[in-house]
């Protein structure tokens, strides 16, 4: 059977931590031997969608294009990690429908915290009126109603958030539960069979 991919769709306010967690996840999934492609707002906006602005229409177009690319990759066995503000519920739901194996991750973070972070100085510019249609300031963000995972980036370390997504992917059966040899945990030295055998031995010895 052909290996199937999946798309982890991060959504949330600017500076809510989507990319930070996606990068950790990318590292972990690669370590587990998966093919991974990360589609990031900042990069796509400079390439695939450089002709687009930030009106609702353009934002929708951008998400449609990303959805299309994610769909192609997903059906070809790639683990796709998208990090876009993707503020509109309707577009996210369309993406879910088209892509199929879709895990929505809501990077939940109070706007004040995002503003304090503001690594690119965008909130500052938006508040000064230099950027129009800025999500969280002058454009709405529609919270997901039923995301597969909520990461609360103001209260969790990025590693904890990434671990929650990993746990969900494991639970959904999208990734194997045990990281194969050479995983992100460099301590892993046993193959899955060996680990299982040692586990059984320790159990028989009463240690666990």
């Amino acid at each position: 059977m052909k290996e199937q991919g999946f798309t982890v769709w991060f959504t949330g306010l600017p500076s809510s931590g989507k990319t930070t967690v996606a990068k950790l996840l990318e590292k972990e999934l690669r370590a587990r031997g998966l093919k991974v492609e990360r589609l990031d707002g900042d990069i796509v906006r400079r390439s695939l969608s450089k002709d687009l602005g930030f009106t609702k229409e353009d934002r929708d177009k951008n998400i449609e294009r990303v959805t299309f690319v994610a769909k192609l990759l997903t059906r070809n066995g790639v683990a796709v990690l998208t990090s876009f503000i993707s503020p509109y519920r309707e577009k996210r739901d369309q993406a879910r429908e088209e892509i199929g194996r879709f895990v929505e991750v809501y990077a939940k973070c109070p706007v004040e915290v995002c503003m304090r972070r503001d690594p690119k100085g965008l909130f500052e510019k938006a508040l000064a009126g230099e950027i129009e249609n800025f999500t969280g300031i002058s454009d709405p963000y529609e919270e997901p109603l039923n995301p597969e995972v909520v990461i609360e980036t103001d209260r969790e370390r990025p590693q904890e958030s990434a671990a929650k997504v990993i746990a969900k992917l494991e639970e959904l059966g999208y990734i194997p539960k045990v990281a194969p040899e050479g995983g992100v945990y460099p301590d892993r030295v046993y193959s899955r069979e060996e680990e299982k055998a040692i586990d059984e031995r320790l159990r028989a010895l009463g240690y666990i």
Partner: protein
Amino acid sequence: MKILVIGLDCVPPELVFDKWRGELPNLASLMGMGVYGPLESTIPPITVPAWASMVTGKDPGRLGFYGFRNRRDYSYNGFSIVTSRSLKEKAIWDYLSEAGKDVVVIGVPPSYPPKRVRGCMISCFLTPSAESPYAYPPSLKEEIQRLVGEYIFDIKDFRTDDKDNLLKQIYEMTEQRFKVVKHLLKTKPWDFFMFVEMGPDRVHHGFWKYFDPEHIKYQPGNSYENVGLEYYRFLDGKIGELLGMLDDQTAVLVVSDHGAKRMDGGICINEWLMKEGYLKLKEKPKGIARFEELHVDWENTVAWAAGGYYGRLFLNVRGREASGVIDPENYERVRDELIEKLEALGDENGKAIGTRVYRPQELYSEIRGIPPDLIILFGDLYWRSVGSVGWNTVWVRENDTGPDDADHALKGIFIMYDPRHSGGGKKVEGLHVVDVAPTVLNLMGLPVPKDMQGKAITTGEAEP
């Protein structure tokens, strides 16, 4: 100065220092010429953290070793088995190798895969099989194979009722280990030589009820009544053979990682958590099921736990576990509540059993990795922790994984003979496993690193 460290897994002071001392001439003579005393283990007193603490001089928190398996993340099933690579702190042999000393290290957990040392290393009983690359340098494996054939890391099929076969295997393993030890003692250059033999631990877990009249299943006059003593005599004889090979410039240490005591029963910790409403299942298992096989209703679960010679309890915390329910603000309150209830839990008749529950933060100087939220020593370790579910009771008198007779005890043994100073056979108290690494470096005339937590034990100290 040369040093031989004889590691005997699970050997308790009561048997060697008291009950069978007169039957063990070689150990008794080391005690008589040196110093000796009970060696307090780590909490938990369990093989991997205890040996690792012993050879690094650092507590389990510093090592991030809270058991054989540790949480690698906050997922519900993310446990990793400890390996030599998870040991990030330097061990005695690393310091000695750096100081230009030749070392031989055999079977000290955790040592799979074997690490590069100035000398030789054979990995421990957590080695998958004799097919695995178990030796450093790799060519040593062939040498061992030529000497003994298939190297025995541990007993096969420990949970057996075929006690004769179990005993035969234990003797074969110990015999073979000593053969390898003698070969390397003779053929390799060494300043420091350490090995760990698992045989005593396997004898205790497999046969304690036959020789301890206080065990609830003890039957006077049973055919395995002398198995314990005979094995100890055999072991003592083997140690005598090694002592006969040493020159008069060699110090000898005999150490164990923890002790042993009879097992009175098991507390089914997850059954108890269910009964108290902390753990909810989506469906009850048919028969007895391992925790990993259960359909846990995580959204309504506050705590779950793992079995073993001690208990590990985990809390389901919001923002930490995927479906966490405990508000981080209530974390300490929930822990306190569980400590109080668990420590008050008696046996099936309500009789107090003396359970102690620890917060990792109160045990260790530092916490690395992800510790359990609580560490439980049930009934002063006369009771084990049973993780499986389906017993419909909290108290069992059988182990969930098959017959077992002994639990671990908090104190192991320490014997040190230094040819330069007589210890006068003095018994010393207050020794701890983290003292062993500083003791070895001190004997070798090397400085003890400041970050080692133990203190060097000397024979001089024992003199009046």
